[in-house]
């Protein structure tokens, strides 16, 4: 395994990423209508998920279970609309299936289930999939395969002791094929993270546990491309990318709102937000915040 230096994104690649992210955000907005979803968290990680699937992960939408694939594990499972949208856009399953969101006839519910093609494993309870990912990464090491395992963690999820236990053990087993991406959107369910259990300095915490850690603007595709291009290496250190993001990114009146965790949008809000994504104005919200979920 060597450091992968890649040329910068071309204007065409950048436009493709922006188009894809827009389509995924639109899917998230539609899923937030009807029964609703965790829209803010989905929008904060949407660019990360889109970038990873387009430029990093070696996966095959026609054969999601191929033995030689990279693994992506969504540990903070409530942002799964971003993953559903990305998988649908990339052809893991037909886009029409997204209309089955929350239908008892399908398994596209508020947290990931591996009945959805491309979803590697279920989550929902925080602090689980880093250890699962470490197990996958360890097996790849034991077999001498050079695939990688990416685990997306929420910043609030870093409250969980099991995360830090797995961080410690991953370093002990020299899992440099394990990459954590932290969606650092600054919020946990109801509060800003730093107001409850302060997390900073996050990157230094990973470094102190024996990891390589880098920070990046999680909405800047060029910056993401730089960071992930330099993430290779076989020095034994697992990798952590702390991606600074904005909860609700892309919908101005939802951005960085503590009271907009779970969203159940009205039909008017859905239409307004879809128009905003296409360049329209900010949408006045008509539903109350702090929907209990």
């Amino acid at each position, binding site marked *: 395994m060597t450091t992968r230096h890649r040329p910068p994104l071309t204007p065409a690649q950048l436009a493709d990423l922006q188009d894809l992210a827009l389509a995924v955000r639109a899917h998230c907005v539609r899923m937030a209508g009807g029964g609703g979803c965790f829209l803010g968290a989905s929008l904060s990680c949407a660019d990360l998920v889109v970038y990873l699937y387009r430029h990093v992960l070696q996966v095959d939408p026609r054969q999601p279970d191929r033995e030689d694939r990279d693994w992506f594990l969504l540990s903070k499972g409530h942002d799964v609309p971003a993953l559903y949208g990305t998988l649908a856009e990339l052809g893991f399953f037909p886009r029409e299936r997204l209309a089955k969101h929350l239908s008892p006839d399908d398994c596209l519910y508020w947290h990931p289930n*591996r009945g959805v093609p491309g979803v*590697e*494993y*279920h989550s929902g*309870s925080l*602090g*689980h*999939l*880093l*250890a*699962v*990912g*470490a*197990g*996958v*990464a*360890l*097996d*790849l090491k*034991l077999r001498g395969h050079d695939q990688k395992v990416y685990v997306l963690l929420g910043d609030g999820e870093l409250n969980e*002791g*099991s995360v830090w*236990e*797995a961080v*410690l*053990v991953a370093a*002990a*087993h020299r899992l440099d094929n394990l990459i954590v991406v932290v969606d650092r959107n600054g919020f946990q369910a109801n509060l800003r993270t730093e107001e409850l259990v302060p997390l900073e300095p996050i990157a230094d915490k990973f470094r102190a546990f024996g990891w390589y850690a880098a920070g990046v603007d999680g909405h800047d595709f060029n910056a993401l491309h730089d960071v992930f291009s330099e993430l290779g290496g076989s020095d034994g250190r697992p990798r952590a990318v702390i991606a600074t993001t904005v909860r609700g990114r892309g919908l101005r009146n939802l951005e960085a709102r503590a009271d907009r965790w779970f969203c159940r949008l009205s039909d008017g809000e859905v239409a307004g937000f879809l128009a905003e994504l296409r360049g329209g104005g900010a949408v006045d919200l008509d539903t109350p915040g702090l929907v209990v979920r």
Partner: protein
Amino acid sequence: MSYERILGDLAERDERIVVMTAENRAAIRGLPARLGSRFIDTGITEMTLVGMATGLALRGRIPVVHALAAFLTLRAYEFIRTDIGITGVPVKLVGYVPGILSEANGPTHQAIEDLALMRAIPGLRVFCPADGPELVAGLPHIVADPHPWYIRYVDAAARLPHTGEFAIGRAEVHGDDGGTPPDVSLVACGYTAGEAHGAAEILRQDGLRVHVVNLRTLVPVDESALLEAARADLVVTVEDHRRVGGLHSRLCELLVARGLRANVRAVAIEDWFTPALLADAIVHAGLDAGSIAARTRAWLSQLEVDHVR
């Protein structure tokens, strides 16, 4: 043949098998040298141990996870339930020093609700060998079975004579086959099956007809053996586990489901047992052969009094 030996042999024959531990190496000290990188010690981290075992299983491995029963089933319970239980990946959990076998460690180490917890997870199977030979006989079947398992570790020499081949879901029944129900059925699993066997020998000296049912696996359970045992005048369940949620509960659930009545009594751990070396702890907890026999006699006498009334 020891647990360590059979585990090493199984793993050498099947590269899918990995042995994992949270630094509980007492029973498996020879395995690191035998298995090399397929011996995986995560340190004192039961949650990560179970999560990593799940990841290894997703890649096609069969992890045998060896850790202290109390910490494995309690500290990592949600990880067992959520990581392993939801999909049923074939992880084999081995709880070391379960029940009375934690001896003098005290209540922190007493895994006496492990059967209740593991039984509550859909699809998770439970093996309670009576002794080392039964563990060794069962392990190849458990490892080959596609389900996740919880195994109550025991390494004692043979505690009762074993009859016939090991089979998942089939109990071992000891006692005369007189064609009619016995006076007493002692239904047991795990280490205390040996004490039940000893109690039966004492009671037979009183002229009683006594059957001992050694369940071997609690999930799946041998329902026909339980139903047959329940035809006795008195059925006594024997387990080094709380009365709630283990073998006693399992028998009662079956009887209620079938609409059957039986005189069922429990020898079990009521709260915490007094920490001591095994020989003393088991007597103090009332789980030894003599105590079981004495309580059985008392229950029989009470039944006769009730019958006369």
